[in-house]
């Protein structure tokens, strides 16, 4: 084909002439419109008919930007008109599409000024559907193709279009909704713009009080959150490093099981770890009673508050930091360590001077992720927080609690965002511009050096008890589904499982009788759809960030990372505010859940991709480009295969996160699309712990199965020839490949 924009233009024409322009009431996946009076019925009509027959004349001007590029068919790319026409067509089409969408809504004109200008509008329009989406995409690509033709980014169409697409998506699904809720921080209850109220709320004693240091009064929630996040991040990073070292650099016998263990907490639905901890360490917990009897002391309630939340968070997030670190620890090239030892440095010196500095990106990433996760964590403070209040739960209760103060919630959200972003910038400064490249195209082999005895003992003595505790906790969870009432009447029963997952044979096959089936199917479908999209968008963004140079890259990176820093509660509410009304009407659909997951988990794919790609030498790309491949082919044939671990990580992580996430989902589920976690919350709220735990156990098993399947499907990357003797980490096994370079 002569011009690369032609298929995209065609797509725009299809969207304008053929497909239903507006959102269909029956759902995105329902295709009854095809047979149910398509084209003539105004509910299903494409834009051209809406304009000509349905009197929605404001849609007709969209034909002009679609006509302009036709003029270019006879021109060559070097013609100056080529880029100019494309830019004009794309920019005009896109902006007109948005303007008409926002200006005309369910109740006619959406702005007072327009009503007085044009008079009352009888007609209305609903959310945009297939047709509008295709047109929008088409305009976007026309615009970016035009920009590339005018010399943008060395004229690389693929890179320009990718950047354009990522910006458009992030703008629409992150910035637009979040701006809606942040604006509300400045709006008083009677809809007035009041910056003073914002300042007053932000400086509240409730947030900043330091009185816990010198009196019995409670400290402000900002300090609570910070103290918790820093403690969690430090502990999880150290523990994660210990795990990673034990696995890569010792002859520890049960490595595989250890890897498996570290995967467990990540696939654990929220609330479960908290509940299990209560049963073990609560006032009437198994261990507490045992110790109290032994030492003859009064059982305490230490678990409720800072120590308990910290405990649960370290349990939950150590695997994340482990997954980040294992990739980096493995990535450190053995030949560097060998070189150091050849130069007569002992193992300790080599570790301190060579290995550890090379792990800096990993350490920083692990710390950053645990820090952010801890700040945004909702389940653990909810169950174990006691009087210890943190920002994430306060935001939730500011919205759903008796206060119903949305602007206070927005103020807290801004604060939380500020903390996360500062952490992000500090991390970047610390890493600086040093090179951490260890995987190059050159031949490279060797074995990792072992740890020196002191280090090894230290690692063993932290890792083994921790692993044992994890086993006990998961034992409790699995066991909990089979007892009558957990912790009180421990007689065996199957009633919880039959209440949730009963099925029987009927006339038309299996009847899914259990109460949990509906939400389970929905959860699995939505998570399975969201995972590949997350991986795709994430890795594409990572590729752009690491391999391409363009202006305002920092801003671009910041934008793509932003959604990770925003707590789920805020995302949930902002999505409802932004996507309940046209032009983007998504609430009540399954799509909004998918989109929410994709953009919430995208930063994971991005970080994972960045970490993995910064270890791949650029000469690999250059070789491919020199051999005549374009950037798309290079990405597909060279980068992607080398990124397999990162792809696995992104797929697994987004799938699992979609299943286990809770705070955003609470607001977005609808009657037809209920998710497992929100169903489980209902059970927990009602004290139906038995069924809740049975459901959680099933979810855990499902996720484990899924992880194994994804591993088998995507396969391994081969970096260098590996000797078969241990301690080589590159053997094919479930545990070593699972999530191994998940930069979480």
């Amino acid at each position: 084909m002569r011009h690369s924009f032609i298929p995209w233009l065609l797509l725009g024409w299809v969207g304008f002439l053929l497909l239903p322009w507006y959102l269909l009431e029956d759902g995105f996946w329902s295709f009854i419109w095809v047979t149910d009076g398509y084209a003539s019925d105004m509910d299903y009509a494409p834009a051209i008919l809406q304009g000509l027959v349905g009197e929605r004349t404001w849609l007709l001007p969209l034909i002009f930007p679609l006509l302009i590029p036709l003029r270019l068919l006879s021109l060559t790319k070097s013609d100056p008109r080529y880029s100019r026409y494309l830019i004009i067509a794309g920019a005009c089409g896109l902006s007109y599409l948005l303007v008409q969408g926002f200006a005309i809504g369910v109740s006619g004109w959406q702005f007072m000024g327009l009503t007085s200008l044009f008079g009352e509008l009888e007609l209305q329009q609903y959310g945009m559907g297939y047709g509008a989406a295709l047109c929008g995409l088409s305009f976007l690509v026309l615009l970016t193709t035009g920009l590339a033709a005018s010399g943008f980014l060395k004229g690389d169409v693929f890179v320009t279009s990718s950047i354009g697409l990522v910006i458009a998506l992030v703008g629409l699904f992150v910035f637009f909704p979040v701006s809606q809720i942040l604006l509300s921080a400045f709006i008083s209850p009677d809809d007035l713009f009041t910056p003073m109220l914002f300042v007053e709320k932000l400086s509240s004693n409730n947030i900043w009080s330091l009185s816990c240091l010198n009196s019995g009064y409670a400290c402000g929630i900002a300090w609570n959150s910070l103290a918790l996040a820093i403690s969690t991040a430090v502990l999880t990073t150290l523990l994660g490093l210990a795990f990673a070292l034990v696995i890569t650099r010792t002859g520890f016998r049960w490595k595989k099981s250890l890897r498996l263990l570290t995967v467990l907490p990540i696939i654990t639905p929220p609330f479960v770890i908290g509940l299990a901890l209560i049963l073990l360490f609560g006032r009437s917990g198994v261990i507490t009673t045992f110790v109290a009897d032994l030492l003859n002391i009064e059982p305490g309630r230490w678990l409720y508050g800072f120590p308990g939340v910290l405990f649960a968070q370290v349990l939950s997030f150590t695997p994340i930091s482990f997954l980040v670190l294992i990739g980096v620890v493995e990535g450190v090239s053995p030949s560097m360590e060998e070189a150091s030892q050849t130069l007569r440095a002992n193992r300790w010196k080599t570790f301190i001077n060579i290995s550890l500095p090379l792990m800096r990106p990993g350490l920083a990433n692990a710390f950053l992720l645990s820090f952010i996760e801890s700040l945004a964590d909702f389940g653990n403070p909810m169950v174990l927080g006691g009087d210890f209040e943190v920002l994430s739960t306060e935001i939730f209760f500011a919205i759903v609690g008796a206060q119903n103060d949305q602007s206070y919630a927005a103020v807290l959200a801004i604060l939380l965002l500020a903390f996360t972003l500062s952490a992000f910038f500090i991390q970047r400064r610390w890493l600086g511009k040093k090179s951490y490249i260890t995987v190059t195209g050159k031949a490279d082999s060797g074995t990792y050096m072992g740890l020196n005895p002191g280090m090894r003992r230290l690692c063993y003595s932290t890792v083994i008890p921790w692993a044992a505790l994890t086993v006990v906790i998961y034992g409790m969870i699995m066991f909990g589904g089979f007892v009558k009432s957990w912790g009180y009447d421990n007689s065996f029963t199957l009633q919880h499982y039959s209440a949730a997952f009963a099925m029987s044979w009927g006339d038309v096959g299996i009847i899914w009788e259990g109460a949990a089936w509906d939400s389970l199917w929905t959860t699995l479908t939505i998570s399975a759809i969201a995972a590949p999209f997350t991986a795709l968008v994430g890795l594409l963004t990572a590729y752009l960030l690491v391999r391409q140079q363009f202006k305002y890259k920092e801003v671009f990176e910041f934008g793509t990372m932003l959604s990770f820093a925003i707590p789920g509660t805020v995302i949930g509410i902002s999505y409802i505010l932004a996507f309940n009304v046209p032009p983007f009407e998504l609430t009540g659909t399954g799509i909004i859940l998918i989109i929410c997951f994709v953009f919430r988990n995208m930063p994971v794919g991005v970080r994972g991709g960045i970490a993995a790609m910064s270890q791949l030498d650029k000469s690999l790309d250059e070789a491919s480009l020199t051999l005549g491949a374009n950037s798309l082919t290079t990405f597909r044939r060279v980068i992607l295969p080398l990124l397999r671990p990162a792809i696995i990580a992104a797929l697994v992580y987004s799938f699992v996160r979609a299943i286990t996430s809770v705070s955003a989902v609470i607001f977005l589920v609808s009657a037809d699309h209920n998710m497992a976690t929100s169903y489980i919350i209902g059970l927990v709220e009602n004290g139906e712990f038995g069924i809740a735990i049975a459901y959680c156990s099933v979810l855990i098993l499902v996720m484990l199965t899924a992880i194994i399947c994804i591993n088998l499907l995507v396969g391994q990357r081969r970096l260098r020839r590996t000797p078969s003797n241990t301690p080589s980490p590159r053997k094919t096994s479930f545990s070593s490949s699972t999530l191994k370079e998940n930069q979480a």
Partner: protein
Amino acid sequence: MKNSPYLLSVTLATLAVLSAPVMAKGKLNVLCSTDTDWCSLMETTFEKETGIKVSLIRKSSGESYAQLRAEAKNPKIDIWWGGTGDPHLQAAAEELTQVYKPKALSELRDWAQNQAKVSGYRTVGIYAGALGFGYNEKLLSAKGLAAPKCWKDLADPKYKGEVQVANPNSSGTSYTALATFVQMMGEDQAFDFLSKLHKNINQYTKSGSAPIKAAANGETAIGITFIHDIVKQVKKGYPVKAVAPCEGTGYEVGSMSIVKGARHLKEAKMWADFALRPDIQTMAAQAKAFQVPSNKSATTPEGAPDFSKIKLIDYDFAKYGSAATRKHLLQRWDADIKSLPR
């Protein structure tokens, strides 16, 4: 040409479990704020009787209210059934819900009719529950403590670190308790009592019914919450006892509101009338719900608190449900009680 999109559509439609069901003749979206069991019992019974397809989602009353507010411009929910009365009144005050006088209005108990009147008939009472506290017999006898009988007993220093109640900022139950104390004792005395009680509180929980679950599991000795929630734990076999305080107590009126701008208004009205019928309200016992039903002819479930034997205060729902009073009391609680040293 004609065949292939059709084929595609069939394949995709089968593949996608997400696909919304084909529109039936009647459809109703219900937001349910009672226990899951009760919600699904209502759903299946209504579907069987009317043939209307019900899509029901369960959310706590705070979450439900937040959703109605967020969706105000384009509501997706038709009727909101169950949940404590305050958020229903707030929704009524903001005109998020719409006026409807159910057929059975005159058959209802006074408190249910009163709820409708206060809201300008935008909501109506469907059940009531009295506030009280429950204690763990085993724990108290192990510590050699007598069982508390009155509110004032709870402030006795011998129960130090043994009482749990929810944070009124997050829980409607606990706000009802706060408002009850203020109405029974007068505001200053109530806060004086609360500051003494504070010394005995080991934790302000987030959820209103959490304290009694903690008592059932032995995590605390005494939990303040609604009596019907305590009865539920008793029926499950936990060693807890419910107490209706000797000084008298406040209560909640579980309510139901039709959402303003409901897309299925006719069906929503059908549900409203259905939910107030005595035979339907009597069924609540099957779902282990021990509230007092609002229809006079409905049978009160066995084990439910007997309102004729409990001293109920004359709870002023209009005043204590209003945004101004609520804000004032919660701010005072935050300032005077929450951060006090123990």
